[in-house]
């Protein structure tokens, strides 16, 4: 790990009982909701490995539901999240999945639907409440959510990253990490850019005007970091 904060050792403040099965699970739900970018209407949640096997006693389903509702891991409404979701007409279906032997034992895939859009992500809870988003809309990613992350869905074109980083460089935004993955050359691609501070709205407005960008979203630092 390149950067290890004191608050990753002490923290996060969370509702029990398990940092990986509860707090991490909640963070994954929270990230999925934020990436969708609107109020979710329905979700299919696929639990893998230990998330499926021992999740019941650890409130994993409640925690993912709480995250999907936008609750942070220290929100005591976590326990009653399924009831709150049902009251709001937010339908969530849980089912088991086998993501293969390479997948982390605490992994989950979430397919989320809003009124405008939908998204699908696969993430794992890697210990102490830390998570890693590994797949988003079919693209390989590696997003821990410890930094504010800009997500750009765009066409794979030459000079794309140069133009984007030029915009960021103009306002002295320091890039902590950057990764692009694409379906095929010249096809749709996803770029995730982690930065040290926060993206000013005018930068986002400017990037919005780039014709090769279809969609743009910011995943803030996950709650509890």
């Amino acid at each position: 790990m390149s950067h290890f904060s004191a608050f990753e050792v002490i923290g996060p403040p969370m509702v029990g009982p398990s940092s990986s099965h509860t707090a991490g699970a909640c963070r994954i739900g929270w990230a999925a909701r934020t990436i969708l970018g609107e109020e979710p209407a329905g979700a299919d949640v696929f639990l893998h490995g230990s998330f499926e096997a021992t999740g019941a006693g650890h409130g994993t389903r409640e925690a993912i539901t709480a995250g999907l509702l936008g609750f942070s891991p220290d929100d005591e409404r976590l326990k009653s999240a399924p009831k709150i979701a049902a009251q709001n007409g937010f339908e969530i279906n849980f089912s088991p999945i086998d993501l293969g032997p390479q997948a982390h034992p605490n992994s989950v895939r979430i397919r989320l639907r809003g009124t405008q859009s939908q998204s699908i992500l696969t993430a794992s809870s890697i210990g102490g409440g830390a998570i890693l988003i590994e797949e988003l809309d079919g693209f390989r990613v590696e997003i821990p959510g410890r930094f504010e992350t800009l997500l750009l869905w765009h066409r794979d074109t030459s000079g794309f990253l140069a133009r984007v980083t030029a915009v960021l460089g103009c306002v002295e935004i320091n890039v902590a990490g950057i990764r692009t993955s694409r379906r095929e050359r010249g096809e749709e691609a996803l770029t995730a850019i982690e930065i040290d501070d926060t993206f000013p709205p005018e930068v986002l407005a400017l990037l919005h005007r780039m014709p090769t960008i279809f969609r743009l979203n910011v995943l803030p630092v996950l709650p509890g970091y």
Partner: protein
Amino acid sequence: MSFQFRTATALLPLCEENAVSIAELTIRSEVESGNLPREEVVAKMLTYYQSMKESVFRGLEITERSRSGLSGGDSKRMLEHSRSPTVSVLGPVFERSIAYALAVLETNAAFGRIVATPTAGSAGICPACLLTWQQERGADDARVSEALFTAAGIGKIIGYGACFSGAQGGCQAEIGSACSMAAAAICELDGGTPAQALNAAALALQNTLGLICDPIGGYVEAPCMMRNGLFGIHAFGASAISLSGVKSIVPFDEVVGALREVGHKMPRMYKETSEGGLATTPTGLRFKPKTP
């Protein structure tokens, strides 16, 4: 990059050159590499300490059993015993310390708010040790919460060199880390030098090596809760030994190396899978959930 460290070997000369404690070095390292100014870093840890104390006091009020039936009301019983005429030779202070650690795990099992230190399953040790120390020495929250940076500094070294998760390294990675962190924190609070605090951490950690993660029924309750209670006492012992001038034969970084090695070689059945140890005893199996 003048305050960053990944090992005790790197930390110690930094403390000595700057004439600072492990707590102060960890604060400086956080300010240097993070986004928050010093005042906010210190204030954040203070709120974490206060949340820890709330999780203790809340747990002490719990009387009903948890969802699993494995815990509930035990910290209250222990606290009452610490105040009774039948208190053991351990004395009211350490009996109370056990009660505090149990209380955090009871709050945790009741879906209450705790602070993962370093994990939820080991979250009772640091609060119990620090609160006990605070009550005995009469210090304020600000001073005690600073010691959480000592704990964090030790935890960072373990995190870089090994891991914190029971699923990866067994209970030694959770309880072992927590009591090692608490031992160093208590040691610095009691006036120990950075070298003595590291020595306390080494002493505490080496006596948890091989500890398996075998939660009954898969719940973070038994044996987790009692391990929090008893390893809190262990942390006080390690700090006292270190303050007396007795040195660990094996230095801290090498103990962390041993933790990593034992964790790697530990069979999967002993790493939070509930497929061995206490979890598969005849009694343990009775608590296995019927349906997930």
